[in-house]
Each structure stands twice: as C-alpha cells, then as structure tokens.
C-alpha cells in the first residue's frame, strides 16, 4: 500500500476504530454484569454484593472513560476524513448517529456520574436504577451504531437523488429493521458480554490463585460463568445468522472469507484451513469438509453459493449497467430536474440506477466512466475482490476463539455448580491467560466485517476511494502520528491503573451489614435516636 490519501484515511479510521473498540466490548458487558451484581445486593441486602459492585465498578470506570474519550473521535472523523461520504449518505447515516446521542449517550453518561457519586445520595433502589440506566444506555448505543453500520453493509430504504447528488432516505423503518443490523447488534453485544465475562472470570481466577478475596472472587466467577456461557452461545449462533445474511447481501464478502474461488455444486464444501492464493485463484493445502458450507450459508442442500470468479463476472455486468445509469444521470442533471428530463433517460436511470455505484468504481482509472475501455471494466471488476488471505484467517481465528469461549465458560459453569471452582489450579491459570483473547476475537470481527466490505464504503453504492476528504497526505499523516502517540500513552496509563486497581483488590466494607431500609431513611432514623 503506498501512502496515498485513501490508504492513509483508511489507516487512520482503522486505528481509531480498533482502539475505540478495545474499550467498548468491556463497557457493554461489564455494565450489565455490575447491574446484575447490584440487583443481587438490593434483593438480598448482603453487603458482599455491594463490595463486588463497587470493585468491578472501579475497573469499569477506568475502562469507560477511555471509551468516552476515543468515542469523540469516532463521532467527528466521518466529517473530517470522509467528507464526500458524509455528504453522499449523511441523509441516512447521520440519523442513527444522532439518535444514538439522544437515546443512548445521554442515558449512560448522565447516570454514570450517579453510579460513582451517588452511593450516599440515593436510596438502594435509586442507585440500582442509575446502574441499570448505564447498562441500558451503553447497549442502546451499540444498537444505533450498528444500525448505521448495518446500512453500510446492506443499504436498504434509500435512493439516489440527482438534484442533490446524494443518497436520500425513502424508508426509515427499513433502515431500522435492516436484518443485517439486527444480527450484527446481537452478535456484537453478545461478544461484549463474553469479553466482560472472560475478564471477570480471569481476574477472579487470579485472586483464587493468590488466595485473596475468595468470597468476592467465587461469587464473581459464578456470575461471569453463567452469563458468559449464555453469551458465548449467542455469539456463535448470531454469528452464524450474520453469515447466512451475507449469503443474501454480501456474497463477495462471504466468498472471500471462505476463499471460494469457484462456484461449487450445492451443497458447497467448507474449507477448514488452507493458504488462499489470490494470484492463482486457488487455496493451497486446503482441508475441506463436504456440504457444510452450503448448509451454513444457504440452509438448504440445493442452493448454490456463487464463488469469487462468478461474482467478478456479475460485477462486470453491473459496471456496464452502472455506466448506463451514469450516462442517464448526466442527462437528467443537464435537464435541470428529474421532471424536466427526457422520458428515456428517466426510464434508464430507473432501471440501472441501483448500479450507479459500480460505475464509480471506474473513477480510479478514468474520469468519465462512459469512456472506460473493456480492460478498465475488467480491472474495476477485479477490484471488487477483497484481499482473501487475511479475511480467511481472521475469520477462522475468530470462530475458533468463539468455540473456545463456549468450552471455557461451560467448564467453569459446571465447576461453579459443583462448588469446585478452586479445584484445578491449571484451569484457573488458563482463565487468567484467556483474558486478552476476547479482545483479539472482537478486533478480528471488526476487521472481517469492514475489511471484507472493501472496495466499498457503502456496499454497492459508494467506493471507499471516492469517499475521502480532499486533504494533503502530510496532514493526515500528522494526525495519524498524533493520535497514535496520544493513544499509546493513554493505553499504557490505562493498563497501569487497571493492574494497580486489580492488585490493590477489593476494598473492605466497614459499614455494618445493611438493613433492608433505604440508607436515607436509616440515616434519618439514626439522627433521631
């Protein structure tokens, strides 16, 4: 990759998004786990559950604040680095982002203050409500950002408007109920729950190994293992749903992930491992299981899944159709408005408009797509194939980790049920070493979803290369360095504080075992005595 503005802008987005996503999954999951722990506290009145809430809350806070800080960059850099994207799809993409602010960010950010500062100011139920609002807020936030992202993968409910030269909304309901967005939402929040569960499990296992905070650690492990097992199952099931949906909406992404060069007779085999070779269009040392891919991808024995070579041929057709749309569009614009345009042009745009984005793929090679040579059309069609090797392996590692989490959580779930959590030291050690794994899985998941969408920024609608701002490469390079330096320093500080807080451990609770009366009332009673 040379250092052109498109690559640099992509690099910056990937860097800031992947970094932001180091904090998001833990926030998503830990907020729910904490809310569960506090619910137990309020229901039973046993103060050990309050201690647990506060201890995990401290770690939550250290993580949460960096999620907030890096989230700011996410909200603004679409406009900064992707100005043509912002203009082209802001009418649709902006709405879920704004609703995310209204419905989710306010809820979590307003109540997170009360979570930390409100212990002495609220009744027990009042504080519990604040905690649940934080958990609800962060999960709503995932919903809306994935509705926005789902639209980038499967752009429903919208149409191109020649007068404003952009995509505009035609059916908001379709954008919200986009099946890709729904599957991604549940997959992503479940992944967040797994992340937090593995984190709580691992840290607690460390305490057991050190013989510290045994009560808190065992209870935390029980919560984490049960919640984590359900979530780990849900991640895999919903990941499968995502795969099924990409068979419908993102055939090329699916074919690239599976390194399916040719269309195989149904039901297609599943390549477990191998070394995909993009040049030769084949996968070396492939180990295949017959029929499995067809079953996962189509849930039928007879439907074919198109391979990469077939899809490139389809892309050529769509590019040619896109050129017709582009041509009609120029005429419509010259006429001043759609209404004033000639009937034939309107009909042509009506028929071919959905392939307009494919004509824009040619912009890399020729200014006016109508002048494209057949070779250029072939080249542009080749461009629709993402890089197969990294996708193939990123996906396999993610899936393997997904199954590992199920086994890990199931094991500790059984141990917890049999009250033998500390029976096997090697299992505890395994749980400690497993702590980083969910992050690896989550980042790989982001990579598969977004890198697999290339060369599109909006699948089939707008090529990534056309979406960038008109900035100097030096300018973007400077901000990449700036963000990298700041993020590195903050990451080191964050890790330091996390480890410090974990080593320091659970703070002793000096209050007497609480009565089931709200603190305010009991304070008032004490004052009267």
């Amino acid at each position, binding site marked *: 990759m040379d250092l052109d503005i498109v690559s640099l802008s992509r690099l910056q987005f990937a860097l800031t998004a992947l970094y932001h996503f180091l904090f998001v999954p833990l926030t998503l999951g830990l907020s729910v786990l904490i809310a569960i722990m506090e619910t137990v506290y309020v229901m039973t009145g046993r103060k050990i559950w309050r201690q647990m809430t506060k201890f995990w809350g401290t770690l939550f*806070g*250290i993580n949460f*604040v*960096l999620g*907030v*800080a*890096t*989230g*700011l*960059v996410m*909200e*603004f850099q*679409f*406009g*900064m680095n992707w*100005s043509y994207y*912002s*203009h082209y799809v*802001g*009418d649709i993409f*902006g*709405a879920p*982002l*704004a*609703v*995310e*602010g*209204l419905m989710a960010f*306010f809820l979590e*950010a*307003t*109540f*997170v*203050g*009360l979570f*930390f*500062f*409100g*212990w*002495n*100011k609220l009744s027990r139920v009042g504080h519990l409500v604040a905690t649940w609002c934080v958990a609800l807020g962060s999960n709503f936030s995932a919903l809306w950002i994935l509705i926005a992202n789902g639209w980038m993968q499967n752009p429903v409910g919208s149409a191109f*408007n020649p*007068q*404003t*030269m*952009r995509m*505009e*909304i035609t*059916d*908001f309901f379709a954008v919200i109920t986009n099946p890709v967005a729904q599957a991604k939402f549940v997959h992503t929040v479940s992944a967040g729950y797994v992340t937090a569960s593995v984190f709580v499990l691992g840290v607690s296992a460390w305490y057991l190994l050190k013989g510290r905070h045994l009560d808190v650690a065992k209870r935390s492990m029980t919560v984490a293992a049960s919640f984590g097992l359900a979530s780990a199952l849900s991640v895999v099931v919903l990941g499968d749903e995502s795969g099924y949906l990409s068979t419908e909406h993102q055939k090329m992404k699916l074919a690239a992930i599976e390194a399916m060069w040719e269309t195989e007779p149904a039901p297609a085999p599943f390549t477990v491992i191998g070394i995909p070779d993009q040049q030769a269009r084949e996968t070396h040392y492939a180990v295949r299981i017959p029929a499995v891919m067809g079953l996962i991808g189509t849930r039928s024995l007879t439907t074919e899944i198109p391979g990469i070579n077939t899809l490139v041929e389809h892309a050529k057709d769509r590019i040619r159709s896109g050129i017709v749309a582009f041509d009609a569009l120029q005429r419509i614009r010259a006429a001043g408005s759609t209404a004033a345009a000639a009937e034939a042009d309107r009909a042509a745009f009506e028929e071919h408009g959905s392939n307009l984005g494919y004509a824009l793929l040619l912009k890399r090679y020729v200014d006016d797509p109508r002048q494209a040579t057949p070779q250029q059309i072939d080249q542009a069609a080749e461009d629709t194939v993402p890089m197969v090797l990294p996708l193939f392996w990123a996906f396999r590692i993610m899936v393997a980790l997904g199954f590992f989490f199920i086994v890990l959580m199931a094991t500790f779930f059984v141990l917890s049920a049999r009250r033998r959590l500390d029976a096997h030291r090697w299992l505890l050690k395994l749980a400690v070493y497993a702590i980083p794994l969910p992050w690896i899985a989550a980042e790989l998941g982001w990579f598969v979803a977004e890198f697999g969408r290339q060369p599109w920024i909006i699948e089939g609608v707008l090529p990534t290369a056309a979406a960038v701002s*008109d900035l100097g490469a030096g*300018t973007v390079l*400077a*901000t990449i360095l*700036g*963000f990298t330096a700041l993020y590195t320093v903050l990451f080191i500080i964050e890790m330091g*504080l996390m480890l*410090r*807080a974990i080593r320091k451990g659970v703070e002793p609770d*000096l209050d007497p075992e609480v009565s089931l009366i709200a603190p305010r009332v009991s304070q008032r009673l004490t004052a009267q005595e």
Partner: protein
Amino acid sequence: MILHTLIDYDVLRMIWWALLAILLIAFALTDGFDLGAAMLLPFVGRTDAERRVVINTVGPVWEGNQVWLILGGGAIFAAWPPLYAVSFSGFYLAMFAILFALILRPVGFKYRSKRESARWRTGWDWALFVGGLVPSLIFGVAVGNVLLGVPFRLDEDLRIFYEGGFFGLLSPFALLCGLVSVSMLCMHGAAWLVLKSRGPVAERSRTYGSAAALATLVLFALGGLLLWQGVDGYRITSAIDPAGPSNPLRKTAEIAAGAWFDNYRSHPWLAAAPAAGLAGAALTWIFLRWRKEGTALLTSSLSILGIIVTVGVTIFPFLLPSSIDPRASLTVWDASSSHQTLFIMLVAAVIFVPLVVAYTLWVYRVLWGKVDEASINEPGNHAY
C-alpha cells in the same frame, strides 16, 4: 411514508436551524462550566485538596454535559450533512486539536486522583487546563471564521475542495472571537465554582469570574464594532426557494460590506440578542461582587445565550459562507437533509430531548449542594 408532509420542508428547516442553536447553547451552558472550571483549575485551586474540590464540583456531571457536544455533532451530520462535511474537513487540523484536548479531559478527571504522586497530579491538572482552554479557544476561532467566510468550493458533483490551511484560520478578528469564547466560558465556570464551593476556591473564583465577565463585556463589544467596521458580510442574490432541493449551487450570492447587519435593519428587535450578551456579562460582574452566586450563574447563562444567538441571527440564513465562491455558501435553504429525514429526526428530538432534560435536572437535584474538602473525603463517595 407520507407522514413527513405534515410539516412543510421550509418550516422543518427553520425548526432544525433553531434546534441546532438550542443544542449548541445547551452545550455551552452545561459543558461550558466544565471547560471554564478546567481552565481555572490551576489558578483557583492552589493545594491538591482545593483542586480536588474544583474537579469534584463538575465530577459527576461533565460526562453527561459533554454529550451535548456529541449530539451537536450527530445532529449536524443528520440534519445538515453538507455543513458537517465542509466544516469538519475544512477545519481539519483545528478539529484535531480540539479532539486531542477533549480526549485529555475525561482521562484527566478520572485518572488524576488514582495515584498520590504530586507530579502525576500536577501533570493531569495541566492536561485538564489544556482540555479546557484549547476547545474553548478554537470553537471561538471557528465562529470567527464562519463570520469571515471560509475558503471552500464545490464541484458539480458537490465534492468539497478546501483551499486554506490551519494558520489561515488565525486572523486577528477570528482570534478576538476565540478570546470572547474563552472569557465567556471562564466567566461561566467561575460562576459555577462560586456556587458549588466554599472558602478560598470560591473567593478566588469570584475574583477571576469578575475579571472574565468584564473581559467578555469588552471583547464582545469590540467584536461587534469590528464586525460593523471591518468585516464584509454575505447576501443571497438570486430568488430563494426555501423548500427547494439541498444543492447550494442552485443559487448565487455575493460578498457585501454591511450585509451582516441586514437582519438587524429589517428586524430591529433582533438587537435584543447582542444586548442580552452584553447585559448578561455586566450583570454577572455585579452579582459576583454582590455575592449573589445563584443569580450570577443565571446571568452568565443569559450572556452566553445572547452571544450565541447573536452569531446565528447575524449570518442567517447562511450557515457557512464561502469566501472564494459565495454561491457555494451553505444556507438554511440549501444545506439540509431531505424533507423526510428532517421530519424523522424532529420526531426523535421531540420524544427524547424533554426526557433527557428531565432526568438531567433530576440528577442535578440529587447532587445539589456545595462540595468541600470534608465531602470529598467522605468514605464511599468515590470522589475524584
């Protein structure tokens, strides 16, 4: 869906222009005192305990307050996509500086008190100072540049080309606007600190707040004078279709001396906005000296409201004028989202904004009362 035709496109555009103003004002009024308090932190707090008092007055609320900024960004994206695209890419390095500073702020609040070391804490104090000063200054400088016009043009595909650099933003008039913003938010932050703290922190805040109120008064008046004497305005020169498609290139516009005062000439009552900006600052100075702390916070809010509304009505219907190709200027009538998106977003705003305001007020009520050294050392308070 034809529901959106219930409200005319031009009316929706006016509503969203007003909502944009409301969001920016809500940000300046709430996160404004966080930014102000952060700027004043090294000066009104001399000891570690005093600085912790300052930080804890905003500690539980800054996160929610900052969402007004995030929502502002999201709302501009959703309701005014061309404005979002042109301004954020055009002010690229300035935006980067703001983000850099704003990233330091949450981290500073949260991490400062996690370790005892004096060097650690002083380091974060200055990070917080930068996190308050840089955004305050640059927001003001950006507004100054909006008044001056920004060097961008659009091609036929509405692709954006920005022909200026970072240093081009730093003209004397724009810097003056930056100083207005800094002094206004210092005034607001000081008024907040006087209300929320006791003893030396409150006393020093009173002193700094009085000075900032006077500076706001003088600088804002000076800015108005300069705008009148030395800054050309913009004017639409073609027929306006307030319900036309959002394509800025369908109109023509010109740069004209005195055009920024057109709206005041045709609607003299609009002068109430700058008057409120000036009067609010003067009253804040008076009430801070009279030790009417609650009232001072209200009058400093009035001043901020007046100043922001002044900018909005001065440039109306412009949102972002282009200095190199005035016809590319973004206006309320040609830089919005589609009719349907504006309607849907209005429905969302009507449902959620009152809800947000309601629970935010409830949280402020729960946290009511002064912060002092005793309260931050209370066990179980989890203070910063």
